[in-house]
């Protein structure tokens, strides 16, 4: 008698599958260093570019917030481009699709992987930014900044996983990734930049504007749901 659930009775638990996939991602990344070093290096180089382009030694408030977020966004796009490449090139999609594992497991593992990339990126980029371009001290601003980074990262992860999967099996994957993800990430940039500018202000640092954090959180939620709903359709051949 067939069960009414859409998975066979002996299908592995999603958490086990996600853990195994995550282990694979981290192993592959640690051995090939394809994404994270490039992202981190790129962010520092971009700060240098901004110094020369804006002709400023120190930034604060809105300008600082903007430069930080644009840099993070562009570095993230590098990561998004690499996210599914190993699977597309080494047959990982087929291997996964042939197994009875639930399809969302791949989504969760990729999203967590991208999040891990972003966290490592920020561990380099934020202190780098504080060192090179930020005028006010970083330490007092850190709690507020971390809150914004958390929600912003979530937005990048949600959009990035979707667009990464969309772009990887096209003939112009490296171009399509940024082209499609950047407009979708503008609201994230908008909310994150507005939220972090009072935190990075030079004169008495302002309070964290909840309105923008809330908007960002809502955006993350809506697109999280959309990504969850459509992801399976991207996996099929």
């Amino acid at each position, binding site marked *: 008698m067939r069960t009414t659930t859409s998975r066979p009775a002996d299908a592995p638990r999603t958490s086990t599958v996600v853990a195994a996939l995550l282990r694979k991602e981290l192993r592959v990344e640690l051995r090939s260093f394809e994404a994270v070093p490039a992202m981190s290096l790129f962010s520092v180089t971009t700060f240098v570019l901004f110094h020369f382009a804006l002709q400023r030694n120190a930034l604060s408030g809105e300008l600082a917030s903007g430069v930080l977020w644009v840099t993070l966004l562009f570095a993230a796009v590098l990561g998004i481009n690499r996210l599914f490449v190993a699977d597309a090139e080494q047959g990982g999609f087929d291997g996964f699709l042939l197994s009875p594992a639930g399809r969302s497991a791949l989504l969760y593992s990729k999203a967590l992987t991208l999040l891990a990339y972003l966290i490592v990126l920020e561990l380099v980029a934020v202190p780098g930014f504080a060192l090179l371009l930020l005028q006010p001290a970083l330490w007092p601003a850190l709690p507020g900044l971390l809150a914004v980074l958390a929600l912003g990262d979530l937005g990048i992860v949600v959009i990035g996983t979707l667009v990464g999967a969309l*772009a990887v099996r096209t003939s112009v994957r490296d*171009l399509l990734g940024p082209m499609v993800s950047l407009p*979708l990430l503008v609201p994230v940039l*908008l909310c994150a930049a*507005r939220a972090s500018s009072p935190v990075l202000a030079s004169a008495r640092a302002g309070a964290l504007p909840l309105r923008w954090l809330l908007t960002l959180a809502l955006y993350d939620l809506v697109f999280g749901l959309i990504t969850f709903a459509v992801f399976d359709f991207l996996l099929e051949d």
Partner: protein
Amino acid sequence: MYGKRLRPLALTTFAALTLTLALAFFWAPNDADQGFLQKIFYIHVPLAIVTLCGFVYGGIAGIAHLRTRDSRWDMRSYVAIHLSLVFGVGVLVTGSIWAKGSWGVWWDWSEPTLVSFLLIMLLYATYQPLRFAIEDPERQARYASVFAITAGAFVPINFAIVRLSTAYLHPRVLGDISGNLPGRFQVVFYLSLVSIGLLWITLWRYEMTSKHARAQLRALRRLLAGDDDDIPAPRRSAVPVLTASARPAGEGGGVGSAR
């Protein structure tokens, strides 16, 4: 299926548009502040509304495609988005003209509609390149539907967020839709909205009919050739492929199935 009632539809649209233009120029009073230039509002705002609805419809057709796997839905989505892109350019152009006429600048960041539109157009401009970059027609349709759904959801959300962000500057909204408009303005505005809506629908149906006709022609050619061994490899294309099962049944003339 799409070819029926095209002519009466087209005539109605033409009539509605003519009436709108006539009323806009001769009947509606000139705006106290902006004078004659304000009349662009009758085109700009309805164009914007219709374009946004078109994009959202593209997303809905995308959902239908994913659920039914019927290539007709993909075609509907493609035509809707493609048409709305064209209308969207019109929105940006008319908005720019109005901004220049009213405030002396071609672009104004504090105008939320224009800014949202710029963003939406930048996103949808990637639709065709995305389709073109995927050779397998079935996968192309599926990925395009996923894009249409994501972008379709993005449209209203983006609008809300940009409006929120400009609310704290000094918004110079190009048009207070409905509500605050006095009598004659309202009549012409709604009439314009209806006519531009009709224009979109007419153009959409024309394009759908044309694509269907072309697909049926190709099917006929294949039938006559007897075997599809001789189909030359198709050039890469961003246009959806209407497959045999998608052909509307009982079409006048009895083309029959592709087999």
